[in-house]
């Protein structure tokens, strides 16, 4: 189902929870709503489901405005954050609920439930009650129950929040594959960027009731359109006066810069081709991070964070090193843009 949302607005009392939100989703896509807690993600999802009424704005499914349709008529599946399973019903009855509402015949219900039980790997648990299941199993039941009536849109509110890290990873992959197989348009909410990046076709960053940016995970990483997005996605350090950094002397209008660890290269003089573009720095801290070193290096008044491969020569605290900043995300009150290291570009053209 193609989804279109225009100028959605919602207050809770005096509190402005959702501010002029617009977006559209192509049929069959999986969209991740990503943002800090309290940003309005759940509110947006609930308005799509019809569980909350927007103050203004349009919700259009498949070309038809559905604002006035009750949740019962919207053909959506909703997986609640706490699953909201019917606790006095068995797994079978939970999954069958939506089918009974649709007045399907008993054999048809049995067949469809069986199909979903197998799809979600719940075989053998049909007669258990929710309190007899693990978190991951409950999550699957919630999922199967939502999918059973063949909804046109699947909404998932932090589906993995209550599941421990190891199984979460497994479930993510499973969800991704399952949604692809079923081919249903889906929106899922998360505050975990790894989850969004891994699972979603497209991400919408939601903060303070607004959509900060919408795009593929790669686009958002590469071209963050607001400082908030830049700092929210990936790791970063904020530098107060970027003009002092080598290669960024002419960034006059910029007040501040955001630099990601992967924008920075660090090492001995011999490790750089363009030594002139590098800066001198001192290693302040070394943290072993399993597969690499995380290095805190002091350059002038600022402290930068970067990673260094275990294959390279190990650095030591207090050691003098060369630091190359490939690019920085610059911003001031009005605008933001990405700047490449000027010296590096010049030198490259000189070589050619």
């Amino acid at each position, binding site marked *: 189902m193609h989804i279109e949302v225009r100028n959605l607005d919602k207050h809770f009392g005096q509190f402005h929870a959702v501010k002029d939100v617009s977006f559209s989703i192509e049929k069959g896509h999986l969209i991740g709503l990503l943002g800090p807690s309290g940003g309005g993600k759940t509110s947006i999802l609930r308005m799509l489901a019809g569980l909350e009424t927007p103050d203004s704005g349009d919700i259009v499914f498949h070309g038809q405005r559905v604002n006035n349709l009750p949740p019962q008529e919207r053909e959506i599946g*909703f997986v609640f954050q706490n699953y*909201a399973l019917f606790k006095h019903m068995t797994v079978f009855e939970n999954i069958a609920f939506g089918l009974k*509402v649709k007045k399907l015949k008993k054999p048809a219900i049995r067949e469809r439930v069986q199909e979903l039980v197998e799809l979600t790997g719940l075989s053998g648990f049909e007669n258990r009650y929710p309190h007899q299941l693990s978190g991951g199993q409950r999550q699957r039941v919630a999922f199967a129950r939502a999918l059973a009536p063949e909804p046109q849109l699947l909404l998932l509110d932090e589906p993995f929040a209550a599941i421990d890290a190891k199984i979460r990873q497994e479930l993510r992959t499973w969800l991704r594959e399952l949604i692809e197989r079923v081919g249903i348009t889906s929106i899922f909410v998360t505050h975990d960027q790894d989850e969004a990046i891994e699972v979603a076709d497209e991400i919408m960053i939601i903060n303070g009731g607004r959509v900060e940016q919408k795009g593929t995970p790669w686009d958002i990483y590469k071209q963050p359109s607001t400082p908030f997005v830049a700092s929210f996605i990936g790791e970063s350090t904020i530098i107060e006066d970027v003009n002092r950094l080598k290669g960024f002397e002419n960034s006059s209008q910029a007040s501040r810069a955001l630099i990601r660890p992967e924008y920075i290269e660090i090492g001995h003089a011999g490790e750089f081709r363009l030594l002139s573009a590098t800066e001198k720095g001192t290693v302040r801290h070394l943290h072993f991070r399993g597969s690499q070193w995380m290095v805190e290096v002091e350059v002038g008044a600022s402290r930068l964070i970067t990673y260094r491969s275990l294959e390279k020569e190990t650095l030591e605290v207090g050691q003098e090193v060369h630091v190359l900043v490939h690019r920085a995300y610059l911003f001031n009150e009005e605008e933001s843009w990405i700047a490449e290291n000027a010296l590096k570009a010049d030198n490259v053209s000189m070589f050619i």
Partner: protein
Amino acid sequence: MKRLWITLTWLVFSILILIPLVVLATGAFGEGTSGFIKALARPEALHALKMTGLIVLVVTLLNGLFGIMMGIYLVRATWLSRRLRQLFNSIVDLPYAVSPVIGGLMIVLLLGPDTIVGAFFEQIGFKVVYAFPGMVIATLFVTFPLMVREVMPVLQELGTDQEQAASTLGAYSWRTFWQVTWPSIRWAVIYGTILTVARSLGEFGAVLVVSGNIINKTQTATTLVYQDMENFNVTAANGVALVLAVFSIGLLLLMERAKKRKEVH
């Protein structure tokens, strides 16, 4: 130490409940089984027991219906202002604080034949006070908190998540209530019902004031016991009282069993 407490508990328990019950039973059978049967077979006794039975039936049904509805409103009606809900919440507890006699008096003052409302009803041939409807209202007043207070905490804990899930699965409120809400509040409603039955069975003060205690018309089992005592008809009084006591104890035992079953479930 623990033993002492247990013994003490039993002692208090027997002084308060068992001994009166034994006295009641010996009193009722003081003139043999025939005396007991004679006391109960009096027309006024049969009428009073029938009256009590009817009141219990009607009050329990009404209290079930309105109690559940009120509970749902008090927990869920977020569109009402918080002040208003707090006010309703306190009003529900009013019968706990107000003596039943005063409650009955309020009903007489509000709906008695001398008031505008009462006169209006009387004119259309519907007597409220000193008649069955008034007695039902009085008993309802006294028992109203019982159902609401049983149901409310369960509804509070239940929340609305499951119901919202049902609505996204296409179910409208009737089906959602019976298939999702009801199974969760069922036990609370059963307790509430048992408490309501027990309370309306034994209600005296409010009913006495509202009914006028007219023999063979508005007399209930409890007010008959009162009248028999006034007339020094001790055997008869004990007989009717014993019937009420047996019912009440039966209800309490039922409640205990219900609790056990719920735990097993």
